């Protein structure tokens, strides 16, 4: 069985959902090992074990994350060499893709991003042109490095858990790297992460500064709140909530678009959602072209009425 290395580029205290998905995918392709770009405490190691990881590679100096991308990319390349892995899987967040990019140059290996499925022969399926095309790609040189989009696979623990052995890897210090000198935390919303949410309620210019009805519906549905660039540019909501070409690309089970016209750049981030609901005052809004259920109406009456009805049905 080939060794499949799963790279945790931004490890938390426990396994993140996307990492569990990657580890599950890894098991379908071979024997999973992990490389963790930082510290790994017992809860994380236990998690890795329950997903069948036999070996966990750690940087000898856990501060590889201090430098921007270069340090983690050097660590990934060394972990691949140390493990003899023949495939690398990692997430598709911007930082993960950049780590993949640089490690690819170091390992003289091809990188494929935006992967949604990987076949046994390592053919990767990816979405292109903002989800309007699907392509089948292969890495033709080196060790395939595949950046896999979240929600592409259902995570499942291994039948036989393992107790991962940890291996420390020396990482060459990158000659020239930018350093992170400051960090300001943003307030947590308490809602699910946009990339992982099963339901997203997104608002645009039509929300006119008042996201309350969207938040109410999102909370009832256990969903996240997203936005168009018009809404984030206006400062009504954090930029990190932006969905679209220059924001997040999401494919939830349900996307409720309210007061958003549906410009190409917005569609780029959400048109692969499973079900799309749109509420807009203007019947000619392009968003209706891709909606499964559209309401021509005022979001300030439609959304509260829907929320009220859901509450009633649940009572």
């Amino acid at each position, binding site marked *: 069985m080939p060794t499949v290395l799963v790279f945790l580029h931004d490890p938390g205290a426990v396994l993140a959902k996307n990492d569990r998905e990657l580890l599950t995918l890894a098991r379908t392709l071979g024997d999973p090992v992990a490389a963790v770009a930082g510290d790994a405490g017992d809860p994380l190691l236990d998690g890795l074990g329950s997903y069948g990881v036999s070996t966990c590679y750690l940087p000898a100096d856990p501060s590889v994350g201090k430098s921007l991308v270069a340090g983690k990319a050097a660590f990934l390349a060394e972990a691949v060499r140390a493990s003899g892995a023949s495939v690398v899987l990692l997430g598709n967040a911007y930082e993960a893709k950049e780590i993949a990019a640089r490690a690819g140059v170091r390992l003289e290996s091809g990188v*494929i991003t935006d992967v949604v499925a990987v076949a046994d022969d390592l053919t990767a399926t990816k979405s292109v042109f903002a989800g309007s095309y699907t392509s089948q790609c292969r890495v033709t040189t080196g060790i395939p490095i595949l950046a896999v989009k979240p929600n592409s696979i259902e995570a499942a623990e291994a039948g036989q858990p393992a107790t991962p052995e940890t291996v420390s890897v020396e990482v060459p210090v990158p000659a020239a790297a*930018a350093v*992170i000198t400051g960090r300001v935390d943003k307030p947590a919303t308490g809602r699910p992460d946009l990339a992982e949410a099963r339901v997203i309620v997104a608002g645009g210019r039509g929300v006119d500064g008042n996201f309350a009805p969207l938040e109410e519906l999102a909370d009832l549905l256990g969903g996240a709140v997203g936005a168009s660039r018009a809404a984030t540019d206006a400062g009504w909501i954090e930029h990190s909530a932006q969905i679209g070409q220059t924001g997040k690309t999401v494919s939830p089970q349900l996307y409720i678009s309210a007061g958003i016209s549906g410009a190409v750049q917005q569609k780029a981030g959400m048109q692969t959602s499973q079900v799309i609901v749109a509420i807009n005052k203007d019947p000619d809004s392009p968003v209706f072209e891709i*909606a*499964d259920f559209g309401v021509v109406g005022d979001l300030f009456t*439609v959304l509260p009425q829907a929320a009220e*009805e*859901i509450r009633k049905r649940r009572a």
Partner: protein
Amino acid sequence: MDEAPTPGLNIAVLVKHVPDAQFDRHLNGPRNTTERSESILSELDEYALEAALQLVEQHGGDAAGHRVTAVTMGPGPAVSAVKKALQMGAAEGVHLTDDALAGSDASATSRALAALLSHLGPFDLVLTGMASTDGETSLVPAQLAERLDLPQVTFAAALELEAAEAGWTLTARRDGDAYSETITCQLPALVSVTDQINEPRYPNFKGIMAAKKKPLRTLSLSDIGLTADEVGFAGSWTAVEAAEPRPPRSQGIVITDEGDAGLRLVDFLAGQKLL
């Protein structure tokens, strides 16, 4: 205003010629490559150019010896991306073009651009967009930084340069989901910028007229010391084996609110088992 510690900032901005996203885009070129009619300067690279122009303007302008070079790699028509950059205010343009470049993936593109920048440079600063609006991989800037051994600062949402005895220091802000970071490095560096950083200017009449007199060079592979097998399909580390348009989303039901749309919306969600 800072005193320039060096003769002047030499800035390269990488601009790509991409299919206009306002039209349908297709992968029906040779070996599933992008069909490139109806192409424009990638909108996201306009932010990089604007950032370069603003940095120069903040630090004494052309008079201080600063220079912005717009660089593209692509087939014949791609030169129009450079021409637009010259109209916006770049001082000089370079177009790398060669039949052998066709089919280059990120690794081959970054190899060619790295060789091109080494041939033209040295540059104090290489600026790029956050992603090309066609490939959308965001791989090229990081791979260039790796190949050129430059510090990388990617997805900058704000950018400042400060001159000191020892050289230029760059400070950037980068916004993540949970936090926003301040990042610093010394020049030379490679920086990619997001669409949050500025509002790109439109070329005005004066800019359009001035652009006609600005130097614009066309280079081929042999000019930068690369051979055909190092780029294009041959030099790429990935291949697209098949590509298919996704079936367009079919339009669903559209109702007009007559006072009960919220209820009908909930009926729809219940029917889809989404409640």
